[in-house]
């Protein structure tokens, strides 16, 4: 008993020491081989800019439902850049919580990317299942109201607002869930505009301008009418439908500034 607890203490020490070493032995990026990419997220509703908290409904769905938006938040994670030859750069510890109400959250600054010509951008909308199961996290993943504790897991996307067509006058879409059959994790690779590459160089940081269209949450494979589809609050079929909608076209790369 005593010996085993001593061993455990030593093991714990060893682990903490190794993790320290890892931190200090991280490769120091040399100026010549890496660069930066900025992803700028531009929130829109169809052809209009997203303006939160309008007093009266300021948007209309293609089916004719009127609405305004009070909250729009989502996670982007596991960003990956791929070169023409198929080699990839996978961003380590890649988690971002984007909040339409917070300007600085709409700019994702990716650093230490190996220089090269990248032809596609891939990312997950939501949080991978591993991070849904490994206890409390830090940074963008620190538990907040984007986290369900009674059915553990992150809320991948939150869209809340008002609509006269909704029975209660409001709609509340909370999408999450990482277990079959209600897995709502979606990974997308929105196409770059024709003949466009993301050219990462040591001396210039390309800006990728992405339009994020709220209307695409309500349209796509499932047409959302607020009267009969006013909410999703837990992992389940409704959340999966909304995830399928937004995966089908919420993100569109508008243009890339080479800088």
């Amino acid at each position, binding site marked *: 008993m005593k010996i*085993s607890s001593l061993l*455990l203490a030593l*093991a*714990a020490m060893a*682990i*903490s020491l190794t993790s320290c070493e890892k931190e200090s032995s991280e490769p120091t990026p040399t100026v010549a081989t890496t660069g930066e990419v900025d992803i700028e997220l531009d929130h829109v509703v169809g052809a209009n800019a997203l303006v939160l908290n309008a007093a009266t409904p300021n948007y209309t769905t293609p089916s004719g439902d009127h609405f305004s938006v009070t909250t729009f938040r989502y996670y982007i994670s596991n960003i990956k850049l791929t070169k023409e030859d198929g080699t990839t750069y996978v961003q380590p510890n890649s988690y971002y919580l984007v909040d339409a109400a917070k300007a600085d959250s709409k700019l994702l600054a990716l650093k230490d990317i190996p220089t090269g010509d990248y032809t596609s951008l891939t990312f997950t909308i939501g949080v991978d299942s591993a991070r*849904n199961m490994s206890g409390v996290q830090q940074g963008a993943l*620190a538990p907040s109201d984007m986290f369900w504790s*009674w059915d553990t897991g992150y809320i991948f996307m939150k869209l809340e607002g008002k609509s006269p067509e909704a029975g209660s006058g409001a709609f509340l879409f909370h999408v999450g869930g990482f277990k079959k059959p209600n897995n709502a994790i979606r990974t997308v690779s929105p196409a770059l505009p024709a003949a466009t590459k993301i050219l990462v160089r040591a001396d210039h940081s390309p800006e990728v301008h992405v339009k994020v269209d709220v209307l695409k949450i309500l349209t796509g494979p499932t047409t959302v009418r607020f009267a009969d589809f006013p909410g999703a609050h837990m992992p389940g079929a409704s959340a999966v439908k909304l995830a399928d909608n937004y995966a089908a076209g919420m993100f569109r790369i508008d243009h890339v500034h080479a800088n």
Partner: protein
Amino acid sequence: MKRTQTVLLAAGLAALLAAGCQPDAAVVPLETVPGSGLPTNFPAPVYGLDQNPPTKVGFELGRKLFYDPRLSRDGSTSCGSCHQQFAAFTHAGHPVSHGIDGLLGTRNSPALQNLRWQRDFLWDGGSNHIETMPAAPITSPVEMGETLENVVRKLNADPEYQRHFEQVFGSKPIDSYQLLKALAQFTAALTSANSRYDHYVRHESGGTLSAAELRGLTLLTQKCTPCHSTELFTDNSFRNNGLDATFAADSGRAHITQRPTDRGKFKVPSLRNVARTAPYMHDGRFQTLEQVLDHYAHGVVASPTLDPLLKPATGPLGLALSSQQKGDLIAFLNTLTDEQFLTDKRLSERP
């Protein structure tokens, strides 16, 4: 990081010293930090000691938070309000929990013990981790009615907490990560492994069981396993033990999985300290262990998801138990009471 290392080094040295200078005692000496040792008769923990390594300052911070009613919206309710030490951290005498504003929950407050060995939390298994689990009561409108953001704000406004958190984590300001890590230092420390039964299986002094208690132990392994099996007296599965025909009030596991085949299934609770955790079952419907055994003997109700173990090939539903057998079982269940755990000053509100 440096800080953690020093603390661990100190803990390591302390362990060395302790190992070097203490004579071999029959009874395991108390660790400096409660729950920082692993009982030899237990299986490997789910939440290893290397995750969130126990430290004295971390444990003390966790304890302070656990007993602090400021974690609730109106400052009335702490974790300890519904989880009382003398009752193995259940809510003594309360069938369902009472939260802020006198609001009633729908479920019985379970014992908090040996959580380090638990994979799923809550009666329906909705919570998958000891660290994130406390966010559920904190944010439940009928329990503590708070937001993590606001709790963190309150803690950051308190100089004593500022100091204590910085001592533990070495960084400012306090955030939800630190809050939940600190709480887990306390909840993971609630190890109960010093009942008379434990002394018996570990061949320690004081570990004698009477003839009736031994008969009860044999009966338990015949009738109550695999559900209440292993040294934790639960297989951590979800099962329907025949409390209801429809489970209209609470569908249990199906609430999480949305599978009809999980309707009426609840997490099998441990039987450790069970003599002190009345009332019983997820809705606190039984007041005594006699009533529980009467349920298994002749109260089991049929439903599509009733556990096959309670559907014998012949005869009535449930488990055949004579009154002598019930007496023996209860005698054994009483040996699972761990007075050292229930009265350990270090786990109490005022240590």
